[in-house]
């Protein structure tokens, strides 16, 4: 009950947990590349064993990064309704598409086969793996490092007129303000609760009432967000930020042995995941 309003504690994205592990000290470019490779492998791999293997890898990554596992688990909690809805829809309507295997149930348009069950289980596992991976990435990498890494990796796209810097900046600002707005929202909820508001106590089917209950938070939050955006613009202009101007970099990254090892490991893991036939 006392944690009723501690919103910022439930948000793991954008939170940095400095434990100074090997994972924390990796070159962000390599870390990001390894992350992308693993995500791709997870997206392609559709075998039980391959995904179990990926799950084990993801969990052990928490140990290597010296981050308590419950950080990852608390990231999954809010996703559970989505996973369940997705799984139900897939189970009911994907039987036709994911045909093959043994058919267990056939009733009207609903077909449940071993293949559609595989699809359901594998996508639920993928969900968990992706959340775990991104939690490790964001918990072990500060947002500045993350965007620097992204900017460098996307650097070549500059040649085809892709606004790499602006893109990186947008991501930085978005991630940077997640905890800030969580805190603003927490404050707003407390302020309105002090005036007698209640949230989420109405019956769940009375959607309109429950939406109206949120207005006293949403409207002021938008106001605060717009005010903050204006402040940010002023602060950036005061420091002579010019859109599109060519910029030098303050930090320079130099790849070391451990960075290559990390990248190689991620490739090996991906290959194993894709090679496993079951």
């Amino acid at each position, binding site marked *: *009950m*006392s944690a*009723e*309003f*501690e919103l910022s*504690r439930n948000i793991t994205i954008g939170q940095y*947990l400095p*434990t100074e592990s090997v994972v924390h000290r990796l070159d962000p470019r390599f870390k990001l590349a390894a992350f992308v490779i693993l995500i791709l492998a997870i997206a392609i791999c559709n075998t039980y064993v391959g995904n179990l293997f990926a799950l084990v890898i993801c969990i052990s990554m928490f140990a290597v990064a010296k981050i*308590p596992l419950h950080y990852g688990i608390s990231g999954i909690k809010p996703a559970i309704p989505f996973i369940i809805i997705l799984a139900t829809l897939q189970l009911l309507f994907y039987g036709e598409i994911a045909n093959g295997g043994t058919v267990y149930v056939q009733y009207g348009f609903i077909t449940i086969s071993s293949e559609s069950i595989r699809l359901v289980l594998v996508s639920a596992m993928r969900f968990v793996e992706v959340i775990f991976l991104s939690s490790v990435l964001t918990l072990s990498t500060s947002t500045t490092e993350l965007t620097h890494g992204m900017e460098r990796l996307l650097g070549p796209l500059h040649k085809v007129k892709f606004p790499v810097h602006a893109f990186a900046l947008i991501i930085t600002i978005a991630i940077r303000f997640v905890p800030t707005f969580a805190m603003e929202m927490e*404050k*707003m909820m*407390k*302020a*309105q*609760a*002090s*005036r*007698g*508001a*209640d949230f989420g106590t109405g019956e769940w089917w009375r959607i309109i009432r429950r939406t109206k209950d949120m*207005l*006293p938070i949403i*409207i*002021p939050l938008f*106001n*605060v967000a717009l005010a903050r955006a204006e402040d940010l613009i002023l602060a950036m202009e005061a420091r002579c930020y010019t859109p599109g101007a060519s910029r030098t970099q303050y930090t320079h990254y130099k790849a070391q042995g451990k960075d290559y090892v990390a990248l190689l490991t991620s490739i090996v893991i991906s290959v194993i995941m894709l090679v496993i036939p079951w």
Partner: protein
Amino acid sequence: MNRSIVEVSDLSHTYMQGTPLAHRALNRVSMQAAKGECIAIIGHTGSGKSTLIQHLNGLFRPQAGKVIVNGLDVSDPKVDIKLLRRQVGLVFQNPEDQLFEKLVGDDIAYGPFKMGLPLAEVKERVEWAMELVGLSFEEMKDRPTFALSGGQKRKIALAGMLALRPKVLVLDEPTAGLDPRSRQELLQRIRRLNQEERLTVIFVSHNMEEVAQLAERVYVMALGQIACEGTPRQIFGNQEILREHHIGTPEAVDILYKLREQGYGVDPGAFLPEEAAAEILKLINR
């Protein structure tokens, strides 16, 4: 002495409990407020003031210790939390951020409507609350909220809280960021609420002039604990306490301390400008 309306005993609170980021914000804090008293809580940023006051209306439940407000035990999980929040009006820092209705009157009426009061009584309460903060009901009730000045918005937020008719008013830095005139006016209003409406007022402040003007008793917080407690006269008159906790002093007290350093016999406990002036006059006429 009246019976205490607010009774906090041995209250402790840890943020982010059970994570590596755990942070102890309150450590065995005890405080009382008698009915009709005006109490200031001062202390540096991070000393636990805000955490303490959020326990008073049950936004935080005590992890250890007890908080009893007007006979309601905040640590009791079955306590009627809405009733509690009506008795303790907690006004946050920059409360003008919380306005959300288009019209002033509607925003103030939000709380009373949430209580389920009939329209006539809501209207009466809104009118009463607006007069208390010095806004004319007829003139202001249909003004759009967002076209108002910061000081006026803050008064509206305060009125929105008063419309719940709380017994205890808790304010977190009520005058921060206001211009000197709005600041003085708001202070006058708070003083009147305390003296004429017999509202118990507990406020957090960094402004010592304000503390000197309003408070009957002062709690000094440091590192999540109550460092000391006393009347403004006791606190401002004791240079050791001031030094130890880096408390600023009202200008009048500053002058008296400087005079004393020069070897003049003045009483620095005279913290109001008038009293300080009297002390200095005594010196001149001697």
